[in-house]
């Protein structure tokens, strides 16, 4: 299965459909999808490295937690990430992220929601729809 995302019409908020062959790829593509909605443009330097731990209770919670973490860095530290390295541990996912200061973007997303979120495992990979509060 290839990987990608597409925007889905939502009356008030923003919604994307994301698909990828495995869960860690799904996280990467979902991050790109969210950044794409925000039209983020990053500087080319200086590079910024961040590491964070996500609890792994269920896949959907980890996905929402991951995107919420990225949203925090956009709002609080004005950083967008380009590269991710994932290190699964027992009940946790360690994320090493490399990013750059934000040059420009649309900062309308308030939060990543759990609304109707369900990662479905199809023959060709994983699919999920994510609604962002705008």
């Amino acid at each position, binding site marked *: 299965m290839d990987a990608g995302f597409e*925007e889905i*019409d*939502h*009356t*008030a*908020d*923003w919604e994307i459909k994301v698909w990828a062959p495995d869960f860690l790829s799904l996280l990467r593509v979902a991050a790109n999808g969210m950044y794409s909605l925000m039209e983020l443009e990053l500087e080319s330097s200086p590079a910024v490295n961040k590491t964070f731990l996500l609890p792994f*209770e269920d896949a*959907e*919670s980890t996905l*929402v*937690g991951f995107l*919420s973490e990225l949203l*925090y860095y*956009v*709002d*609080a530290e*004005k950083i967008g990430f380009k590269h991710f390295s994932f290190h699964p541990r027992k009940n946790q996912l360690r994320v090493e992220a490399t990013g750059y200061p934000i040059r420009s973007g*649309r*900062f*309308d*997303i*308030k*939060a*990543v*929601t*759990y*609304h*109707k*979120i369900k990662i479905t495992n199809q023959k060709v990979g994983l699919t999920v729809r994510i*609604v962002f*509060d*705008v």
Partner: protein
Amino acid sequence: MIPLNRFTKISDFVWEIPSTYRQDMRVPVRIFATQELLKASLDDLSMEQAVNVATLPGLAGQVVVMPDMHQGYGFPIGGVAASRVSDGVVSPGAIGYDINCGVRLLASTIPGELAKKHGQDLAIALDRFCPSGVGKEGKIRLSEAELRQVCKLGSGWALKKGMANDQDIVRTEEEGCLQEADPMSISPRAMSRGIDQLGTLGSGNHFLEVGVVDAVFDEKAATQMGMQEGNLTLMIHCGSRGFGHQICTDFVQQFQSTVRHYQIQIPDRELVCAPVQSPEGQKYLAAMRSAANYAFCNRQILAHQAREAFESVFAGKIKNWGLTQVYDVAHNMGKIETHVIQGQKVKVCVHRKGATRAFGPGSPAIPEEYRSIGQPVLVPGSMGTASWVLAGTSGSMEHSFGSCCHGAGRVLSRNQAKRSIRGEQLRDQLGEQGVLIKAGSLPGLAEEAPQAYKDVDMVVEVVVGADIARKVARIKPLIVIKG
């Protein structure tokens, strides 16, 4: 989609989905709408979301949906649900991420014609004095101790700093300060987001709008509120910024396991909740109140900054450029209130999401000077259309837990809106209609085009027809500043 024949018509403006519609519903859903608005609402998920809300434990009466309803995430926008404090739940997602997003209206004695003469200057000054855009830093950078004070004092913090007057405070819902806020319930991450965002507008549908009172329907009430036909007004729409967003995010995440602990069945994970009286529920309420107080203080500081902008433009040109507060009211909030439900006084946690409190005459919760007329209800339009000032009625106390609509309500998605018009084109069109626009993002402006919203006049006719509010005045937009 719920078929139209599953709705029971109560009157021309009131409909009901009985609790027998779905097995897991605990109470009915009552919708304030004309048949036309009701049919239009079936195009999105708002009704399904309202039915989902009706499954939450401990609900009192019915779930109420306002005519400006539209699909949200979990809880419909325009929804009101009251859960009994004794055995009900509090749901962060049912209050929303932008805790105490709300509207403040200020009135003036400045003649509307002056806005045409000095419109550009005023737009530039408002944009300069009131920073906008998500993550945009304000002029105020708080220490952590000061932020905790803001959480506890709300608008009172601005009063102590000389950025408010006594009338501002009195004419704010809860006098701009919810009791029992506890900043110790807030994560360090949320605290870090609250440090530098006070006095900023944000983006999305948040705005500052200079308008002119173009019609008065209740002379006594309008005079009491300080509004006169032909004079300028200023409306401020914003909330608790990244501080509130992070608090809600934290608790929605935490409550994913809380619902399992209390064995609460929910049809949508965004409706996670905790019993109101549980330690988890009380902790959320204490954090939510802190964010609500932050939002009250934020709108107060924006009002102060807007006054500075007005002064910079009008000082020396007219005698009185002052802006006096009409009212400030939340439309994303959870409040502990007592309502008469089926003849019994019941203490409930009222969740209003995209719905405004609208207490009727005589309520001790509204300023003494408004007790004979009812609480002002502020209903912003959509840049090109009117905004409304209404007053709460005794009917709202009987039918909607003292609640009313909060705006026009979206009808087109953001992409549909962008496909229908370009930002530049919209800015020019509105300019030709006499509405001056200053927007941080032109695509963002197109997403908020008037055609993306319902007809606000129709929404107002419903709440008036259903006797949950009455008309006081209509305001025509002249200058809109968007983040």
